[in-house]
């Protein structure tokens, strides 16, 4: 079974969100998502300062198998990206909730975060999928 940490929020596109004390939010893909994608070989990240609406593609992850759009779980501005993934995209496979994080964003409207699932709801979502 895939790992679903209790302290994160989740989107139906299999991304996780961690809201930090300063109000910014870190986004990555879940353990389930990295397992389904297979070994990642390339991450195409957005430029810091870019602004995306909820559901918009902010980047692409490519595994050996396929390319997948990464969709914004909420609208906002990109504050930073995980540059370690340029050379070691496999961090997303080995540590999806830690060193394999994708981007840090400033949410435009924090109420959008309320629409995300908690860990229990995401686990149920995985079971039903």
């Amino acid at each position, binding site marked *: 079974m895939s790992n679903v940490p209790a302290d994160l929020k989740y989107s139906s596109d299999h991304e996780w969100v961690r809201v930090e004390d300063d109000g910014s939010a870190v986004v990555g893909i879940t353990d389930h998502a990295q397992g*389904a994608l*297979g*070994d990642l*070989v390339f991450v195409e990240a957005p430029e810091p300062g870019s602004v995306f609406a909820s559901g918009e593609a902010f980047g692409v992850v490519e595994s050996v*198998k396929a*390319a997948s759009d990464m969709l914004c779980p909420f609208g906002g501005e990109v504050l930073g990206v995980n540059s370690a993934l340029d050379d070691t995209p496999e961090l997303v496979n080995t540590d999806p909730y830690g060193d394999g994080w994708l981007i840090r964003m400033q949410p435009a409207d924090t109420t959008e975060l309320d629409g995300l699932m908690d860990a229990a709801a995401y686990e149920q979502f995985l079971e039903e999928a």
Partner: protein
Amino acid sequence: MPKQTPLYDAHIALGARIVDFGGWNMPVNYGSQIEEHHAVRNDAGMFDVSHMTVVDLQGAAARPFLCGLLANDIGKLREPGKALYSCMLNHAGGVIDDLIVYYLAEDRFRMVVNAATRDKDLAWIRQQASADGPTINERDDLAMIAVQGPNARQKAAGVLPPEQAAAALALKPFSAAAIGELFIARTGYTGEDGWEIMLPAAAAADFWGRLNQAGIHPCGLGARDTLRLEAGMNLYGNDMDENTTPLESALSWTVAFEPQERDFIGRAALEKQQADGVDRKLVGLLLEGKGVLRAHQKVICAAGEGETTSGSFSPTLGRSIGMARLPAACGSECEVEIRGRRLSASVGKTSFVRNGKAVD
């Protein structure tokens, strides 16, 4: 419901991720596809290829029948046990399938064709066979396991009784023999040394387990694809199909125009294409920068446009490689359109890696 091979339960027990491949539930990987790829390049890996279709042809008519059916010439097979790679063409010269044919005895040949093309292949073969043709017998009672890699033969030989191991280790490349209840061929689809082993379906799970205990890594179809792509081996349905001929699929070497009197299906069409000029070719692409080539991306070169037919990340080279069908006049450079951007790629031969080493 997709079909299952006799090894399905073994795959589940090993934690395989299962996908539907050509109507079969097959393992795509058992964890990390890249680790499986490296296991084959550097040590030994094994693949369940029981989904592939084994067809035995029997009778005095088998040889003349295959002489007309296949674009390569089974007359090249002098000794029993020798194998030949060939395309099976339609009358327009298009590729119905690619296959391996084994010469077992003067009245006995065995063909291994693709899984996804099983029904149309069998229909075509039966359609071409006249009433006095050979007996055509699909061997769905057999399972098939490929062991591949520099240490694969030695490790696999370790699970055989000594006299069988000696016979198997004595096989020359592209040769096969019936050894006990096994049919062992020194062939493969990875660019590495190894065997493809056919055996009774009922014995497959036990044999697979013993190979695993001998230190041969289970590998899924994902690694099989990156290995064959690095080795420059075409994938039917991607790199060639019924709308392309071998001459525009980097498979001219598999078409035997000699002897001239051998009239195989598709010969007239290929001769006409040769006379008129082959205006497309299948090439290998090496992406210069970051990104990953995939099938059906647009390719732009000075001589015109073409399309990728296969593409992936090459774990051995650490870069993306692919195959593309391009105008015959295309030079050594091109650009590939990946998600709206044009990235540079170099154009060369389709084979990138052989026996663990990058091909220059």
